[in-house]
């Protein structure tokens, strides 16, 4: 063993954090347009099962990724319809989406002539895609060049969405819609269209995050490979204060917290394992408490119109 514990923990953090990066950035995009979507868990599960299903049939991982994104986006349309067109409570609609998505995933996993449940995935995202010479470099090799394709995709997603939100005109439009839809509309922006699009992008990214579980982290199907990741992503949006780059670090921090509970045990550090297992959740709760108390949430960048149905006629 010439790799240090720290290195291995960082590698694990990146692996375990990647699906949460996708889902968190997706939720940031939706929330930046003013729509709170608590259906992340449902969208991730639908993406996970859709991606697993097509990969199981075709052994093609990229088809799995594509279908996972389509499935996540398709499910999110229900939420967009509820919250943008029907203007119902976004909280209730989002929760219903999670319940529905969970049911769909369980159902699809058991349907068909060969049920997916209990089956391993015939193909797995676990191979570094860059030349081995690069990955063999000390320290930066594994950290930067030693990952599978979806990790690099997640970095691209973070960079692109951050640039999009904060350095482009369409991104400014999205933020305007999330801050003050009435003014945005007065400036000629189609609020509904912007919100539909970003809820769907959020759904596609959540679906992709789900597929990372079923095609990379736990490449088999057993009702729920995702664990509570969807809920974590929603909490991390706040921890990341609605900024994609911070979402990347927050997700990795969460990934590291998950691994640390096991690493400590192998190192013989005498902290009860059950306590360590709680660490990621305590971290998330603390972050939310600290960051959202009082007026700080506003200051952090919570979109002003987040979660508020927009009625044109009530302006």
């Amino acid at each position, binding site marked *: *063993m010439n*790799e240090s*514990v720290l290195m*291995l923990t960082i590698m*694990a953090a990146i692996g*375990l954090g990647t699906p949460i990066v996708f889902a968190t950035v997706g939720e940031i995009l939706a929330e930046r347009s003013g729509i709170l979507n608590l259906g992340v868990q449902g969208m991730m599960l639908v993406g996970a099962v859709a991606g697993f299903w097509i990969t199981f049939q075709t052994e093609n991982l990229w088809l799995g990724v594509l279908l996972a994104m389509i499935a996540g986006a398709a499910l999110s349309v*229900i939420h967009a*319809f*509820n919250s943008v067109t*029907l*203007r*119902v*409570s976004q909280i*209730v*609609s989002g929760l*219903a*989406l999670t*319940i*529905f998505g969970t*049911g*769909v995933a*369980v*159902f699809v996993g*058991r*349907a068909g002539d060969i*049920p997916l*449940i*209990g089956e*391993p995935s015939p193909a*797995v995202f*676990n191979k570094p895609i860059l030349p081995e010479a690069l990955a063999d470099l000390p320290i930066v090799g594994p950290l930067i060049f030693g990952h599978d394709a979806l990790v690099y995709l997640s970095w691209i997603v973070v960079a692109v969405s951050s640039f999009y939100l904060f350095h482009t005109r369409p991104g400014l439009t999205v933020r305007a819609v999330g801050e003050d839809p009435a003014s945005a509309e007065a400036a000629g922006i189609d609020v509904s269209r912007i919100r539909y699009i970003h809820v769907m992008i959020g759904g596609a990214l959540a679906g992709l995050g789900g597929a990372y*579980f079923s095609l990379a*982290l*736990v*490449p*088999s199907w*057993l*009702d729920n*490979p*995702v*664990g509570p990741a969807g809920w974590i992503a929603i909490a991390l949006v706040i921890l990341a204060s609605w900024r994609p780059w911070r979402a990347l670090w927050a997700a990795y921090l969460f990934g590291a917290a*998950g*691994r640390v509970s*096991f*690493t400590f*045990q*192998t*190192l*013989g550090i*005498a902290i*009860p*394992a*059950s306590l360590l*297992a709680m660490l990621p959740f305590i971290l998330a709760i603390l972050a939310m408490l600290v960051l959202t108390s009082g007026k700080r949430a506003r200051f952090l960048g919570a979109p002003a119109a987040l979660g508020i*149905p927009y*009625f044109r006629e009530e302006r």
Partner: protein
Amino acid sequence: MARKRWTFAIALMLVLALFAAACGSDDGGSSSGDEEFKIAFVHVGPTADKGWSWAHDQGAKYLEANMPGVKITTLESIDEGPDSQRVFEDLAADGNTLIFGTSFGYMDPMLAAAENFPDVTFVHATGYKTSDNMGNYFGAAEEGRYLSGMAAGERTETNLIGYVAAFPIPEVLRGINAFTLGVREINPDAEVQVVWTSTWLDPTKEGDAAQALLDAGADVIAMHQDTPAPGQKAEAAGAGWVGYNTDMSEFAPNGWLTAAIWDWGPFYLTTAEAVKAGTWKPEVVYGHMADGMVDIASFGPSVSDEMQALIETRKQEIIDGTFAVFPDPIVNQDGVEQPLGDIFGMDFFVEGVIGSPKS
């Protein structure tokens, strides 16, 4: 107007959700006939887990195939805890005369349900409580664990074996200790590093715990939980894998060594026949290799012929009663000899285990 839309949308979503949930369950309708003998099984995980619940479901299928006129209802993924009492009572009210609950956490809820339905027979796996109409059953997995440890002891080159453990309860500690004794019969220098996950079925966590052990230098992974995730991580790392519950070799064709496995079918059949005949008594059943309840799975490609023969010999000795898995006195983790005591209350690790037996 907004409210009307709101109500409509929520109603729609709920209907869809219920529809999906209904599709997902495989609880057949209950047509009541006096002739049929209704038996129910309640499992903590999906019966397709290829692990614990799957093994019990195989037992249920054996019962169904061998007992004419039996009607079996299977409920899967039922959470442990207070709400499971409602599940047991629903099944009792539905005309099931015999109800099996196959997870430790069902114990108290089942006891409460048994009190409310004195005419129904309840049988609980892995617990320790009984009443007039509730029995319990389990088996000596440690016998299979010991044998699987022998295969692991042969395989390891780093002399570090990782053990992904569930909860620090006697059942799990017995498994770890028996496994370690088997490992060290073959390889006295090998040690077994335990990592607790506090889960029975969470593939992400269990896989990651295995990865942490592999990162720490383990070249064989053993496990207690109901998912094959640790085996997939071991396979990807080129390490060996000792599974549990069932033959899971398809998840790691190269790394697979063997596993302690269950055969619950004959027990389910004799229990059902006793209940039907009215001869059933509430008792504590602890099955052994000699009864066929516990066995060892097929061997993977890296287990040598000599080792397979040695394991078979040891297996026969266990069946004949000439070899005891746990010696008495026994040497504990600190190298101190102590009386074995009651194995159903086991709360210590044997020599060679690294980690804390208290989680």
